[in-house]
């Protein structure tokens, strides 16, 4: 009985205070605390008479400038990919040649099935994924640099301003940025968003942020089909993801999740020179996830694919699904199989191709073999990249969405709408592009 009494008394007090202060008691209490702090600091701290313009302020004048902010953000992002590419290509070639050599040796192993398992499955399938360790780690290194020096908070601030204008919550962009590493922690980071509709919207659009696992797919196809503009093509995938996220965010906010957005003032931490230890630790924290996945789920998936392929069960599965993707240009059974198994983890898209096309090295690389064997053009490759960006997030992300939304309805919704959207975008790219070629 007493507890009900307490709650009734609470309501009475709140109403009374609201009438006295014309404000919520919460605000009055917060003001009292800040008042205490302000008084405390007047006695215990002296600030310079005229606050010096710090270097941070000067840099901010440029980096979060109303007009320059977004172009600078995009230019830096582009720079990150150029850096990732330039440095990692020679490293990747070495690793690729190494695995190729081992795969060749494996063909002499008897019995024949074991040789195939080791050559096609392990070195072909898993190897084709592990080749991408250098770019993934370099990308995470570059992102760690931007984060540690304080730029990523600015990027969020700049995008925040844009998002406010279209009615999306400001805190959303930090989880979006985290999505470049992996969408799982990014979706978990949406917990800092107070407004439930803002939070759900952010979860729904987060998978469009290209995670580290999608980078190998972009690099593989950009390298094979767009030799002269690799960096630009990969960048365009990231940009497409961001743009789709903004568009879909707007759509959800105007339809399914209508309502007012929460308030939030973004904090801009001062710029700091990153420490080497900090950079290495942050790179490793994100990168190790990839290595662990390579040793567990990707490995398991590759073994499964090899087994299905070796027993001849893979092709019929692919052939049953492939026609769906014909309008988008990649209606071959191999591509269909890669997309299906890519649901386990997006790296498996590459792993599947790696298993199906071993011995690719002599022909100049996996990407070239796909072009040759499947007859893909640059346009088809681009449509396929867009598909892998947009279609159903990987299993781990789906699980996270289920947990965080606590709703099967929204989880199934994400699976459905991303699949349809991916198909539409890929088909549009292929069909419209075909008109010009």
């Amino acid at each position, binding site marked *: *009985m007493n*507890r009900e009494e307490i709650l009734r008394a609470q309501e009475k*007090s*709140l109403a009374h205070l609201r009438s006295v202060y014309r404000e919520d008691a919460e605000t*009055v209490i917060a003001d*009292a605390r800040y008042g205490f702090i302000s008084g*405390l600091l007047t006695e215990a701290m*002296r600030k310079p008479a005229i606050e010096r313009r710090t270097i941070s302020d000067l840099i901010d004048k440029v980096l979060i400038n109303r007009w320059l902010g977004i172009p600078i953000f995009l230019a830096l992002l582009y720079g990150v990919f150029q850096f990732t590419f330039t440095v990692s290509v020679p490293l990747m070639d070495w690793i690729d040649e190494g695995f190729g050599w081992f795969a060749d040796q494996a063909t002499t192993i008897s019995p024949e099935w074991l040789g195939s398992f080791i050559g096609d499955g392990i070195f072909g399938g898993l190897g084709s994924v592990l080749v991408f360790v250098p770019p993934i780690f370099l990308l995470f290194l570059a992102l760690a640099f931007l984060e540690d020096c304080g730029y990523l908070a600015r990027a969020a601030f700049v995008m925040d301003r844009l998002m406010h204008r279209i009615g999306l919550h400001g805190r959303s962009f930090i989880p979006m940025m985290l999505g470049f590493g992996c969408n799982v922690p990014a979706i978990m980071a949406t*917990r800092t968003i107070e407004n439930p509709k803002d939070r759900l919207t952010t979860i729904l659009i987060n998978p469009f942020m290209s995670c580290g696992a999608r980078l190998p797919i972009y690099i593989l196809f950009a390298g094979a089909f767009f030799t002269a503009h690799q960096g630009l093509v990969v960048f365009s995938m990231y940009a497409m993801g961001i743009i789709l996220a903004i568009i879909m965010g707007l759509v959800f906010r105007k339809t399914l999740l209508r309502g007012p957005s929460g308030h939030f003032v973004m904090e801009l931490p001062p710029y700091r020179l990153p420490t080497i230890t900090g950079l290495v630790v942050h790179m490793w924290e994100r990168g190790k996830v990839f290595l662990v996945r390579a040793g567990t789920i990707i490995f398991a998936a590759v073994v499964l694919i090899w087994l299905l392929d070796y027993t001849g069960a893979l092709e019929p599965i692919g052939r049953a699904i492939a026609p769906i993707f014909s309008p988008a240009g990649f209606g071959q059974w191999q591509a269909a199989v890669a997309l299906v198994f890519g649901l386990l983890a997006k790296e498996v898209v590459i792993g599947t191709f790696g298993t199906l096309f071993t011995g690719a090295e002599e022909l100049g690389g996996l990407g070239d073999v796909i072009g040759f064997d499947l007859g893909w053009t640059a346009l088809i490759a681009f449509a396929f990249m867009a598909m892998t960006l947009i279609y159903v997030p990987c299993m781990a992300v789906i699980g996270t969405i289920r947990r965080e939304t606590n709703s099967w309805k929204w989880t199934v919704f994400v699976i459905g709408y991303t699949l349809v959207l991916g198909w539409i975008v890929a088909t549009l790219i292929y069909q419209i592009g075909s008109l010009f070629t």
Partner: protein
Amino acid sequence: MRMAKEITIALAGNPNSGKTTVFNNLTGARQHVGNWPGVTVEKKEGTCRYQGYAIKVVDLPGVYSFTAYSIDEVVARNFVVEEKPDAVVDIVDASNLERNLYLAVQLMEMGTRLIVALNMMDQAESRGYKIDVPQLSYLLDVPVVPMVANRNRGTQELLEEIVKMADGEVQPRKFRLDYGREVEEEIAKLEELISQDDELSQRYSPRWLAVKLLEGDEEVVKTLRATKE
């Protein structure tokens, strides 16, 4: 050999206050990452030994406030209130004191055994802020340790204060913020009612609970509803 005395301390602080660096400085490689029970918020724990103490260090999620607006805030707050650690170290960005001390004030209101770690002193100095540390410590009546965590300065002094707190050399004072006459009257009414409830007043400080109720704290309201007879 004498057994090491075991104590538990919690690290609180705003995001970007260098909390993780302090945690690493204290615990080195002896870390364990898990989840807070029931939720998927990451829970980092580590241990360190100092002057015959085995100190368990719990890294709370970085928060600006102890309201109930996000899971992080609820997790951090519940740990402090329910587990009653032997000391709570609030990592404060010295170059942004106004904002960072907000959490410290709330911790003091909760009656925790608080130590304020004044981190990033170098940044504050380079901005020309002159912080009178002894004065700050005197006014707050809690130990204040100046630090530059990313250069591992002040870790020793912090451990010193933690041990003093655990030894009972430093007693937390009863902190009481004056919210103004009108609010205080309402607090008094609620406090009175809460004190009559044995279970509640044993678990929580009645005044703190009263303030939380006036803040319209969902979590506290939920607790009251859930345990209603």
